[in-house]
Each structure stands twice: as structure tokens, then as C-alpha cells.
């Protein structure tokens, strides 16, 4: 019995030394963790700036696109009126040429609509950046908690535990691997009776 107890004490002693060494090691790397995590708010800020910059740029492209779209509609209306007048005056060739110009203007109007829809990339990028910012904020909070738990004190206040980083990370991964195309969505909708 004594022999067993001695062995148990020995093992407990070994375990205690291991835990103490581990805590010392973690306490030593604490300042490095603090230093690294201090950079995270800057990274978040840069990401937020990126969102703002792409939004401003996209809005300006949209503004100019809409101006050109309105011009296209006006030019097309004017051309059509001129074509009708020329047709009544029997200027067939001139009318045909102007009709061709009108067709080109109408096609360009469609291209402008395509430019507008292509700009939706900004929304998709902004959504992912927002998720990354939330993840960075939570990683920073967890690093700070580690430092505090293992002996390096700092003045930061403890943030409420949102526990959303894992969820957002999964969503980001899902956007890469399981993002659904419109055709797949339509197939699923059809299964629910949508026609």
C-alpha cells in the first residue's frame, strides 16, 4: 500500500512540475502574444478601410454608368425621331444608317446594365471582409484572455463572449466550397413546387 502511495506521490509530483513548467513557458511567450495581438486592431482597421474604399469607388462607377445610361436613352429617343422623319422624307439610306446607330446605342445600354450588375462584387467582398474583421476581433480577445490567465497582466477589459468567430469562419469556408449557383437553387425551388 505504501509503495503504491509513494508511486502516486511521485507521479503527482511529476505532473505538478510539468504544469509549472508549461505555465512558465506560456508566461514567457505572453509578451510576444500581447505584442502580436496589439497589431490586430490595426489589421481590422485596414480591412474596414478597404470596404470603404471599394464602396466609394463602386458608387462613383455606378454614378457615371447611370449618367451614360440616361444619355443612351435620350440619344436613342432622338435618333428614333430623326429616323421617322427621314423615312417620311424618303431618305431611306440615311434612315437605315441612323437606325444602325440607334441599335448600337441600345446595345451599349445593355452593356451598361451588365457593368452595373458586375459591380455587385463589392457587396460580396464587403460581406467577407466584415466576417474577417469579426474573426480578428475575437482572435484578439482570446489571445488577451490567454495572456491574462497565464500571468501576464494587462489593462484590457474583458469583452463579452460572443463565440461567433467559429461560426463565421465556417460560413467563410462554406462560401468557398459550397456556394450554390442559381441553377442549383432553382432545382431545389422546383422540388418545393416553384415553377
Amino acid at each position: 500500500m505504501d509503495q503504491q502511495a509513494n508511486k502516486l506521490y511521485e507521479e503527482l509530483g511529476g505532473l505538478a512540475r510539468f504544469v509549472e513548467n508549461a505555465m512558465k513557458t506560456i508566461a514567457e511567450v505572453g509578451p510576444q502574444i500581447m505584442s502580436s495581438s496589439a497589431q490586430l486592431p490595426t489589421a481590422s482597421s485596414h480591412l474596414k478601410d478597404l470596404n470603404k474604399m471599394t464602396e466609394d469607388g463602386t458608387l462613383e462607377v455606378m454614378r457615371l454608368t447611370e449618367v451614360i445610361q440616361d444619355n443612351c436613352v435620350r440619344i436613342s429617343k432622338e435618333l428614333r425621331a430623326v429616323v421617322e422623319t427621314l423615312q417620311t422624307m424618303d431618305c431611306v439610306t440615311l434612315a437605315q444608317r441612323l437606325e444602325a446607330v440607334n441599335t448600337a446605342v441600345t446595345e451599349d445600354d445593355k452593356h451598361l446594365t451588365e457593368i452595373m450588375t458586375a459591380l455587385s462584387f463589392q457587396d460580396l467582398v464587403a460581406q467577407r471582409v466584415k466576417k474577417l474583421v469579426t474573426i480578428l476581433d475575437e482572435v484578439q480577445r482570446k489571445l488577451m484572455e490567454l495572456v491574462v490567465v497565464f500571468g501576464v497582466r494587462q489593462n484590457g477589459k474583458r469583452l463579452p463572449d460572443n463565440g461567433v468567430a467559429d461560426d463565421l469562419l465556417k460560413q467563410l469556408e462554406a462560401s468557398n466550397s459550397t456556394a450554390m449557383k442559381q441553377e442549383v437553387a432553382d432545382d431545389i425551388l422546383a422540388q418545393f413546387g416553384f415553377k
Partner: protein
Amino acid sequence: MPADPSMKILVVDDMVTMRRIIKNILKQLGFANVEEAENGQEGLQKLKADTFGFVVSDWNMPVMTGIDMLRAIRADEKLKTIPVLMVTAEAQQSNLVEAVQAGVSNYIVKPFTAETMQEKLGKIFK
């Protein structure tokens, strides 16, 4: 019943760029009477304060999400028949099923084209 070009449409999205794109497409399709809201809560307030014929909504928004707004619309006696089209990057099967169960009228996956919007409008207002 075909869509009435003069009907008032509400576009609900927290991203100003996306609201502008949807408004632009709707204008190209002949619908110029469009209002905007930044989130589900603001959308719901506007729906209750005025008469709208159609709602186009994003899914992920602060304050109130699109799916919560959709549920609130379907639970409201005055609003429950308004067609709601979800336009969202949340394109996982579970999201789509959730939207269908909540009473969505149709669903568009971002990024999308003007043709897709026209096709969905045609299906909703046939």
C-alpha cells in the same frame, strides 16, 4: 397577374451598392417606383406605413435579417400576400429551405444578372 409597372417596390439591403444595382435593374425592367430600406426593421416600418406591391430583400443585415422580416411579413394580416424575393449570397441549401418554409416567393443567388431578375419577376407575377 402580370406585374404592374407603376407598383411601388421596396428594396431592403444594408449595402448601398447592392440597393443601387437592384434599383437600376428594376428601372431597366420598367419599374421606376422604388423605395429603399437598410435593414428588415426599417423595411417592415415602411411596409406598414405605405402600400407596396413587391419586396426585394437581402438575407444578412444588421438589426433585423431578411428572413426575420419575411417571417414578420407573412405573420402580418395586411402584409402577408406581398411577394418577397430574396436576393442573397447565403446560398446554402439549408438557407434556401429555411426561406421556402418562411414563405419566400422566389430566391436569387448573388451575383446575378438583369435577365435572372426579369425571369424571377416573370415567375412571381405570371
